[in-house]
């Protein structure tokens, strides 16, 4: 593959001094909507900053459509990035903000005005607001104006860090349908989110990362399956762990058991979490074992489980 139409990460690692940003990421993204999903601090922003040259990889190589960010003129004609920082150059109106960037492309003032107006229309920021100072904008308006700035020059690759943050449900729906439209036009749209639920409908591809590691990628069904198939460790506090273990091993999806040091709990590793919980419920109802508490033990697995299967992703 020449990489002319893909975004490629080649064994990329990024360390911030001692702190791990992302580790050994190899990834090839083709056009359409790709969503990076993971809890806060998992490395989504790092991946996006690497893609756009705001940080440099400690190891490995990143290329976007075969271009490198050091060749800024060509690279940023093709790439638009709406970063997560909710800050602006001082003293500008929304329109000036979008216009200033467009003027740097070397186009005429007339063309730049046209494109700026078009971008503002696309994000549905009303004209009166566009000519007010950004300092007075609401969070949602600031999100919109940053999006407008990123798409104004018609990039082929659009990178959006948590673009739905701070938007009301109405604006979310509008943004999502805009992303879908851009994806259909053959653009690369890379979005990040820490809530899978809100983006899974529109994503052609999901990339799951936690703690700087790539956990799974593919379409949403593949990813869900992949996560389900990963054995997961749970800790169960109960009065008769040995009995619980034997009951669990009677069904074959329990792959490992280890007694807690105090004898009043057990670690169990299971390949099928749904089945496991169903069985545990049955045992609890039976009453032979008194179960006090159940908790996913493995932090990563815990997070992924909550993201993909549980509903409580937002609290992380």
């Amino acid at each position: 593959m020449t990489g002319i139409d893909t975004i490629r990460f080649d064994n990329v690692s990024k360390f911030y001094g001692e702190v791990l940003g992302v580790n050994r990421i190899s990834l090839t993204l083709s056009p359409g909507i790709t969503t990076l999903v993971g809890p806060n601090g998992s490395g989504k922003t790092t991946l996006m900053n690497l893609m756009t040259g705001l940080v440099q990889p400690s190891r490995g190589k990143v290329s976007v459509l075969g271009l490198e960010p050091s060749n800024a003129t060509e690279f940023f004609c093709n790439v638009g990035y709406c970063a997560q920082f909710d800050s602006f150059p001082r003293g500008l109106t929304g329109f000036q903000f979008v216009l200033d960037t467009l003027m740097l492309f070397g186009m005429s003032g007339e063309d730049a005005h046209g494109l700026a107006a078009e971008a503002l229309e696309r994000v549905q920021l009303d004209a009166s607001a566009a000519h007010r100072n950004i300092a007075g904008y609401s969070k949602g308006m600031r999100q919109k104006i940053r999006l407008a700035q990123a798409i104004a020059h018609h990039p082929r690759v659009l990178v959006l860090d948590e673009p739905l943050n701070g938007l009301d449900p109405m604006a979310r729906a509008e943004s999502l349908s805009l992303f879908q439209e851009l994806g259909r036009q053959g653009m690369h749209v890379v979005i990040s989110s820490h809530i899978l639920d809100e983006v899974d409908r529109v994503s052609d591809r999901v990339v799951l990362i936690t703690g700087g590691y790539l956990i799974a990628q593919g379409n949403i069904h593949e990813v869900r399956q992949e996560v389900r198939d990963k054995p997961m460790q749970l800790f169960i506090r109960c009065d008769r762990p040995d009995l619980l273990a034997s009951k669990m091993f009677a069904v074959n999806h329990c792959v490992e058991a280890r007694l807690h040091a105090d004898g009043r709990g057990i670690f169990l590793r299971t390949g099928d979490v749904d089945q496991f919980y169903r069985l545990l419920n049955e045992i609890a109802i039976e009453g032979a074992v008194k179960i006090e508490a159940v908790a996913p033990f493995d932090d990563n697995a815990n997070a992924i489980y909550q993201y993909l299967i549980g509903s409580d992703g937002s609290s992380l």
Partner: protein
Amino acid sequence: MTELIGTLRQQPWSLWWIQFRRFARIEIRRNLITKRAWWIYFLAFVPAVIIFIHLLIDRHQPSSMTEDTNVLAGIVQFYYVRLGIFFGCLGIFSRLIRGEMIERSLHYYLLSPVRREVILLAKFFAGSVSSVILFVFAMTLDFVLMYIGYGGAGQDFMLHGPGFGQFQAYLLVVTLACLGYGSIFLLLSLMFRNPMPGALLLWGWEAINPVMPSLLQKFSVASYLRHLMPVSVPAEGIFALLTVETEPVSAWVAVIGLLGLIAVVLVYCCFRMRRLEIRYATE
């Protein structure tokens, strides 16, 4: 060599030039008209205020003109070069990049289709224009206020005496001081989160520089400027300690030497700029 020239020819120079101008315009718009920089105006115009008071109370005997010329030379050499322009440029130039990091707006520029070298040089240009306009204006005001009280004698000094030549020399000194300190502070701000300790070190370095071997003097802005001063200030008191007679250097050599120093610093700035990462979290 021909290959290099070929590559250079192929670069989109005209686009870079357009970007440079537009970028510089954005910067100057934000740099010149800012209330935050009030203390820089203060630094620039303190001598004018003092000279103005002097203008009101002094009787301006023709005999005191030489003395006033020396005072003016002292103001340029010891006040502007060592203090006013030094700290004024620290304020102006270290804000260019670092200020935008603190305000978290630098990434917009790094994501624009402008090479980082062009961004850096355009910012440097904008800082230079701002500081040169400010300090040249202030210095001109000092000059006018100093001699206006002498009436016809002052006019004569300006138009037919050495006054105009001195004025031109001061213009050159002020301009070069802005560019020289500006480039160094731009570099310091690229290297350190807080450029202040570095600036204070530089300040000490500039102060002790006159007593350094001439090789080390090549790395000091003030020592180049000293060769451009039209009037040598008679050393008195504490200044005598700091003023050491060095071998005379012709003005041209000093100008070219300083411009060379500025160029080296800017090249290294470009190198740092290319490797700059956006890590606002740690600012």
